[in-house]
Each structure stands twice: as C-alpha cells, then as structure tokens.
C-alpha cells in the first residue's frame, strides 16, 4: 500500500511553455536548469520550497511571459564576453506573497507527511521483500525494521521517525540493483561484489550526508527551511532541559483540535456538526420536531425513538402512520404536518436499543433525562 510521495509529472512555470519534468528526479537536474536556460528565471532559497509543484502551480496562475517583471525580481547580469547585459529574473522570499506561499506549502506538507505516517503506523499489512535475503516481510513496519536489524544489522533509524517507508525501501533496493553501495555510492561490477564490499567495509548503513534520503525522515520537515544538520547544531533547545522544567503549558491536551463529529439527518442525507442545526433542518425541511417528540421521555426511550425512526425510514416505511414501502418517504412525512407525538407502543421494543446506523452521533447528543430504572449489575470487586 504505497502512496507515492510526489506525483509523477510537473509542468513548467510559464503557462505557454510545454516542458514537462519528472518529479521523481531531483529538481536541480530537471526543472531548475530548464528555467535558467530557457526563461532566465532563478528560484532562490530552495531549501524553503517543500513542494516544487505547488509552488510553480501558484505562480503559473499569476505570471505570464508578459508580466514577469511585476512579480519577479529583475536583475541585469553582464555576460563574461562583454555582450549586452541580460535580464534575469529571481523568485525569492523578499516579497511577502512569496514568503507566505512558502510557509503555507510547508505547513501543508508537514500535515500531509504526519497523516501519511499515521496511516503507515496503523497499517498492519506491509508486504515487501527483504533487501538482503529472499524472505518476504509482513506485518507492520516495526516488524520490518526488526528483521533488518536482527538478521542483517541494517538500521534505518527508529520506524517512528520515518515516512513513506515502503517507497524508501524500494529506493534502496533499486540502488542496490544498480550495484551502488548505499554508503559510499561507488559502483561495482555486479551484485555479488557489492554485497562483499558492504560486508567487508561495514557499509550496511546510510550516509547521513546523503541528501537523497532526506525526504523520508520526518525531522527534515520539522522546522521551516532547516534540515537535520542545522537543527542538530542548534544549541538553543535541549530535550533534557525541557523535560526537567516540566513545561506544563506544552503538555496539555486541550490544543488537540479536530473535526467535530457529523450528525446525519433522519430523513435525507444532509449532515451537520451541531445538534441544534440538524434539529432546525428537520423542523423546516421535513416537519419533524424532535424536541417535542422527545419531550418528557427518558434517555432510553429517546434512543429507542430515534432508532425506530431510522430503521423504518431506511426501509421506506413511515414511522408515523405505519404505511409501508412508500416511494418518496420525505414527501409523505411532510403530509403529516407537525406531528407532535408518536405512540409509545410503536417503539417500545428492546430491539430498538440497538443503533440502526453505525456511528450514529445523534444518539450521543440526546439529553440524558432520569427515567425508568434499568437493572445493571456491576462486576464483583475482588
């Protein structure tokens, strides 16, 4: 289950240029030389551009060959052999727009990468071949790194620091298939000599200075524009000092914001996040007044009522009059007008305690009113 890190093809910055570049290769080899030679455009501070495609796409919408000077910095460069000075254009983060764009792309990339890592952490079925032996490795990526470490003494780092793991391993495999050493990048005659070399020189590890693998480690996405090398030189922060001071403001639960769960309407497929909005919708669109229906009912009765209505409506039966197999259930319910009560016997069955819909958040919004006593026996305290 590999989600490719970056999609495969990108277009040039200028809309009228048809150049397509292969995003899986390094930007320095493909798009940057093209921009320089064909259009005389230079992009500065490449380390803060996290996603070249998004960046170029944004500018493509704004910039045409005609109005280059509006957005880009124009620089006159004198050529060596004394010809007329040529105008070169530079895109860098002096302009506010560019800076904001780069930061936005950085945040988007960071979120995407963390999401990808979460899904990789939860997926239990990675199925890839081992790099060094003919074994097939299954299970989660933790098991994969355990095998590589225990059997082959090959570590990539803690699996929780990695992202796009399957792609990473495929990348390494293709490198080894080209008989290139993973550590020193030297090419050998064939696979066998490569294995011998790696065994003798203990090159069964990765070269930290090799930037090719930077995108597979989360630490490189952590700070805007800084790779792991500059971060490690940063003497400003220390894990130890923080844990000792406690930093109670940082380890709170309240800043985890998520999406509020959605509530589905009883009749149609409209969803809202607030209970009051869905009640309003049902009152205005379907003439169902949930407040009056649930008035004075205990919690369990309300649950039964909601489930009863859901069961019946999904079977195209009307919950109010009992008519079955109606072609247009929402139309029919409107004809009842504002029915205020629903007879208790209709829904007083225990089977309506079982929710009709999976993850029905409406049941969680019902007000808990003290009602009939239910017999619940607690387990023994030993």
């Amino acid at each position, binding site marked *: 289950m590999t989600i490719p890190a970056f999609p495969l093809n990108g277009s040039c910055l200028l809309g009228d240029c048809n150049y397509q570049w292969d995003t899986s290769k390094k930007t320095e080899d493909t798009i940057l030389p093209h921009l320089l030679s064909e259009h005389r455009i230079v992009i500065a501070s490449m380390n803060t551009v996290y996603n070249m495609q998004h960046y170029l796409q944004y500018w493509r919408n704004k910039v045409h060959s005609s109005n280059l000077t509006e957005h880009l910095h124009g620089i006159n460069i004198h050529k060596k052999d004394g010809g007329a000075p040529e105008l070169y254009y530079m895109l860098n983060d002096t302009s506010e727009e560019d800076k904001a764009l780069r930061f936005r792309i950085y945040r988007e990339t960071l979120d995407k990468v963390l999401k990808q890592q979460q899904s990789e952490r939860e997926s239990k079925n990675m199925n890839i071949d081992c790099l060094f032996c003919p074994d097939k490795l299954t299970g989660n990526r933790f098991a994969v790194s355990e095998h590589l470490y225990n059997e082959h003494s090959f570590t990539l780092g803690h699996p929780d620091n990695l992202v796009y793991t399957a792609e990473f391993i495929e990348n390494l495999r293709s490198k080894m298939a080209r008989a290139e050493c993973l550590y020193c990048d030297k090419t050998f005659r064939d696979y066998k000599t490569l294995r011998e070399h790696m065994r003798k020189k203990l090159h069964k590890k990765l070269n930290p200075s090799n930037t090719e693998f930077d995108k597979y480690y989360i630490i490189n996405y952590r700070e805007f524009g800084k790779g792991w090398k500059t971060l490690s030189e940063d003497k400003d922060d220390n894990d130890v000092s923080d844990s000792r001071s406690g930093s109670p403001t940082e380890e709170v639960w309240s800043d985890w*914001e998520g999406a509020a769960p959605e509530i589905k309407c009883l009749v149609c497929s409209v969803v809202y996040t607030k209970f009051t909005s869905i009640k309003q919708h049902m009152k205005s669109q379907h003439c169902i007044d949930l407040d009056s229906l649930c008035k004075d009912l205990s919690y369990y009765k309300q649950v039964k009522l909601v489930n009863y209505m859901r069961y019946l409506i999904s079977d195209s039966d009307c919950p109010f009059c009992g008519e079955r197999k109606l072609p247009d259930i929402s139309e029919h319910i409107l004809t009842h007008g504002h029915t205020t009560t629903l007879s208790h016997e209709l829904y007083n069955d225990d089977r309506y305690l079982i929710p009709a819909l999976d993850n029905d958040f409406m049941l969680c919004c019902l007000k808990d009113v003290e009602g009939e006593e239910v017999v619940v026996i*607690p387990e023994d305290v030993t």
Partner: protein
Amino acid sequence: MAKSKNHTNHNQNRKAHRNGIKKPNVPKKIALKGMDSKFVRNLRFSKKHNTEKKKKSNQMADTAPAPGGDSAGARGGFGRGGSRGGGRGRGRGRGNRTGRGGGDSKEWYPCTKLGRLVKDGMIKKIEEIYLFSLPIKEAEIIDFFLGSKLKDEVLKIMPVQKQTRAGQRTRFKAFVAIGDYDGHIGLGVKCSKEVATAIRGAIILAKLSVIPVRRGYWGNKIGMPHTVPCKVTGKCGSVLVRLVPAPRGTGLVSAPVPKKLLNMAGFEDCYTCATGQTATLGNFAKATFAAIAATYAYLTPDMWSPTVFTNSPYQEYTDYLAKPFVKQPKKEVKY
C-alpha cells in the same frame, strides 16, 4: 665481491624464538630505598584502599548479575548510536534493541519502595496497589503486571510551535492511549523534537496513568461484563461526557476518539452523551477517561458491607524494605 645487503629481516624472528622471547622481570615489590617518606606513606594507604575495593567487587559479582552493558541512553532506544549530531535518525552504529514490542534486554533496578516490593514479588496483584491509592512512579511496575497484554495506540501526532528569540521552534506532540482491552486504560501526552522520542515518552506517561475499570452486566448476570456499571460522568475543559449502560449487542455508540478509549478499556456496549465543544478532541478524550475512572468511584449497594481494613504494603513489609538492596551499578566512565 660487494655484498648485496648488509642486513635482512629474514630469519631474525626464528633466531629470537630459539631461546624464547623472555618477558622482562618485573618484581612484585618495587625498591623503596631512597624514595620520599611521604610518598611511601601515601603508597601504603592507596594499596590498602585498592585491595578493599577488589574484595567488595568480588562479593558483588557473586550476588548480582552484571547489567546489560549497551548504553544507547534511552530506555529501549533504537539507532541513536551515541552521538546526537551525526546520523540522527540514520541509525549510525549499533543502537539498542527496538523499543515498542521488544526491549526486555535491560535489567530493571527499581528506585522506589513500591518498585522494590513489586520486583521481589511481595505484591501479587496490581489491585493491591490501587486499593491503597499508592502513586505509581515507575512504568516498569505496570509492565510487570500487565506487560504483554497492554497495547498502545497513537491517537495523534501534531506539530506545536513556540516563539523563541531565534525564530520559531517546532516540536512534535504525541497523544497515546494504552490499554489491555480487559479492564485497564491509560492516557499520555509528550512533546519532543523527534517523533519517536515523543511517542516513547508518551507511552511511559500513559503507563503511569493506568487505572482499573469497573464493568457491569445489563439485565442478567451471564457471561462476561460488557457495559458500564452505572451512569458515570467525566468533564474536562468544556466537554462533558456521560456514559450510559447499554444492552448486549449495542456496540459502542460514540464519536471515534472516545470509542477507541472505551474499546481499549474493555467495554463492548455503551451509549455516550457528549456536550460542549466536542471539536477539542483532547478534552473529549480526557473527559471520557475521567468518566471511565469514575466507574470505580461509584458506591454500589454490593459495597455496603463494612470493609475490613488491611495494612498497606509499606507497613506490612517494613522489615523487608529496611534491608539493603541492589542499586543500579554506576556506569564506568572511560576517559
């Protein structure tokens, strides 16, 4: 005729080994004649001290087993390989065994009284600790009792930023829930510069916060308990969560985040009522945790009979605690 060579190495080794390579004769007692008297006195004292240390260490070697020497620092660290700078995340050098799942290669030297009692088997069940509300400060205690059954789940990793003089500083915050799906649950949050460190720290904090969960039966007492024993409430921030008992087969009716927690605690059926800003999932999770904790705080009629008070483990085992114990041997620092 001129000689072609004046010296060769050939045959020299054979000649030397004919009469054996003799080691220099080093006398046991060095000649002290003419040495400064203060120096000689000092020599005597140091000799005495060294022989004492040797005797003691021989004794220690007989009683306590040698600790696992690998020093990759953190508990069950992986691929840190000593130096912080180079190869962070690249696993340069042999790191310690992988943390989650494995990591039983390190010997546990308890540093709290409770830890010592647990390690030596004086405390048979974790319920004895809960009965006296003793604070648990070592995660290994929980590992000892619940060990393999505990499963951890990372709820969320999010980047948090702090403004410093040198610009912004981002760290990763990990929210972890841990439970054995059969009556125990814990929550932990930790912030750190690397994702793996944050997760590891959060797991340890989650283990320290493990609480027992009381379940109940709906209607008739057959099979295993599956639902909440009574209506319980928990509040955190603006979020109020109420857990309501449900009949068998209902399943867990709630939003995804509390559902995970209820599942890990061992509930099969439960209704939830949530009010407040449920979008703050952090508070939502903590409120659910508080509600689950309240299951054992609720006094039910079967607990009405008068309690027979027993001694707390600290009182019962005072003489055992007074005995000297094996401390963690100090790591030798090589210069």
